[in-house]
């Protein structure tokens, strides 16, 4: 993989922000979009925009082919067994909500437990809190080790015969922890539970196979993997999805509609009420094609080089605290003594460097870290070592700028 070639594919990267070349280190929030994806969406709107599944006219057929072809692409990308196991959603949040609202509420009772972790994004906490409130089930947390990982012993002692659902993130959006999903799935299944995985931070950066990991549900977002916003997907094993009730009702998802009762389409369309996100799905499929043309292994290796280099350079700066385990995905969350993350992000922005500051939609994890906020730099295939240098120098400047405040 040649990073200069990759960068040429991303028009947005070639601009100045506050009179400095843009250094975009916020891909864990939203990744940038290559021309190939922009073109695919553009082509859809210019050439065959029309509604799907009503395929009498030509454009309708083309749109249906594009949309259903995108489903096929996602299926292959995730290693799913069947195409109908892929449901398009608005994103990971909507996918996780679908599982919690449909599978969760139908299968949980007040004798059951839901097991999650403190490192979850709010989107993999709140749907379970709500399902627990609605059914009387108990919500339990697997404790974290001081470095932000989980021990198999702790997972084993938290997941019990009472557990019906284990919901866990594949990669933490704050700590960069890569969780042993396959092992957790095994423990969940031994206890008769299903495992629901938030894959939003994993699929953009590593090769994922849902059958190999033997997970029951897996949720992803398009906009974190070079695709557009507003599209994502839920993978679910057919044996679960086929018995689940839809959560949204209306057009597109019905079979027969009578005055007082209706029946649903077959999988996966019963979960896709309303005109679907056609251009989004087509854009997401183009993003998958793009990532696969470069190779997920190459992308992962590139990010690993960048994050290792970034952490080593950050450790040179006195007063910079890096959170998370040594073995991490391509992001680094940190604080700089004496500089609030907001102030830090503003100073970095003045140098053209975009980082995230705040609680990263993980307030329980901030509590665990005993901080109110942190800053995060996240890397992707288009970032370079030179950009890491610019970031580190800007970090030093921020420290200098605020350094004398507290002396």
């Amino acid at each position, binding site marked *: 993989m040649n990073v200069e070639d990759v960068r040429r594919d991303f028009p947005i990267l070639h601009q100045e922000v*506050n*009179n*400095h070349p843009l250094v975009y280190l916020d891909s864990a929030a939203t990744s940038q979009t290559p021309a190939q994806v922009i073109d695919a969406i553009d082509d859809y709107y210019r050439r065959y925009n029309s509604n799907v599944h009503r395929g009498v006219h030509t454009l309708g057929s083309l749109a249906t082919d594009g949309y259903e072809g995108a489903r096929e692409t996602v299926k292959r990308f995730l290693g799913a067994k069947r195409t109908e196991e892929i449901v398009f959603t608005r994103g990971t949040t909507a996918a996780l909500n679908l599982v919690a609202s449909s599978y969760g509420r139908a299968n949980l009772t007040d004798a059951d437990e839901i097991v999650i972790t403190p490192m979850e994004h709010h989107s993999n906490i709140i749907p379970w809190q709500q399902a627990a409130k609605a059914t009387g089930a108990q919500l339990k947390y697997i404790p974290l080790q001081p470095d932000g990982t989980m021990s198999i012993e702790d997972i084993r002692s938290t997941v019990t015969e009472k557990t019906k659902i284990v919901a866990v993130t594949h990669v933490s959006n704050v700590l960069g922890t890569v969780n042993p999903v396959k092992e957790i799935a095994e423990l969940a299944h031994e206890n008769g539970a299903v495992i629901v995985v938030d894959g939003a931070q994993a699929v953009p950066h590593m090769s994922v196979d849902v059958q190999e990991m033997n997970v029951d549900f897996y949720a992803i977002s398009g906009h974190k993997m070079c695709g557009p916003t507003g599209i994502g997907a839920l993978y679910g094993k057919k044996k679960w999805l086929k018995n689940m009730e839809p959560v949204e009702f209306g057009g597109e998802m019905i079979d027969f509609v009578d005055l007082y009762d209706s029946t649903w389409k077959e999988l996966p369309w019963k979960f896709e009420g309303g005109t679907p996100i056609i251009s989004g799905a087509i854009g997401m499929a183009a993003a998958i094609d793009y990532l696969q043309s470069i190779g997920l292994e190459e992308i992962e290796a590139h990010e690993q080089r960048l994050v290792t280099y970034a952490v080593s350079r950050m450790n040179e700066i006195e007063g910079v605290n890096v959170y998370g385990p040594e073995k991490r995905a391509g992001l680094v969350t940190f604080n700089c003594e004496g500089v*609030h*993350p*907001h*102030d830090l992000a*503003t*100073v970095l*922005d*003045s*140098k053209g460097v975009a980082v995230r*500051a*705040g*609680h990263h939609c993980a*307030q329980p994890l*901030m509590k665990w870290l005993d901080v*109110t*906020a942190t800053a995060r730099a996240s890397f992707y295939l288009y970032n370079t070592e030179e950009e890491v240098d610019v970031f580190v120098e800007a970090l030093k400047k921020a420290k200098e*700028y*605020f350094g004398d*405040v*507290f002396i």
Partner: protein
Amino acid sequence: MSSSDQLDTLYRQVIMDHYKNPRNKGELQDGDTLKINMNNPTCGDRIQLQMKVEDGKIAEAKFIGEGCSISLSSASMMTQAIKGLDVDEALQMSDIFSKMMLGEEVDDSKFDLGDIEALQGVSKFPARIKCATLAWKAMEQGLSDGEDEDDDD
């Protein structure tokens, strides 16, 4: 304008002074105080503002909280400025402050804004306006809650 000049319009010396030495930081011991908790859900900043209102006047104002230089210095300046003001005047001042944050021209003849004028530069940093207005929003909520109780609607 160079990027460090730009930063200087945001982080004026007086702001840094309030950040480093916040005025009125602490808790009012008196039981008869208004306490308003306010947070900025997008970033985790939080503040508790305490005010003692006597005969329609803000007799005391203190705050505790965690946040960035802009939110804490703004809280510090605000508590300084509203002490001794009538409730109405404090709300008017808050209105002036909101306008200032939007970069609008404000009539500053009515009040001595003092240090608060140093926060004018925040208007050029849209992402930080919510930091600056956090304490003011708490004040507005506290004072208008009192009003709501008198209303029938």
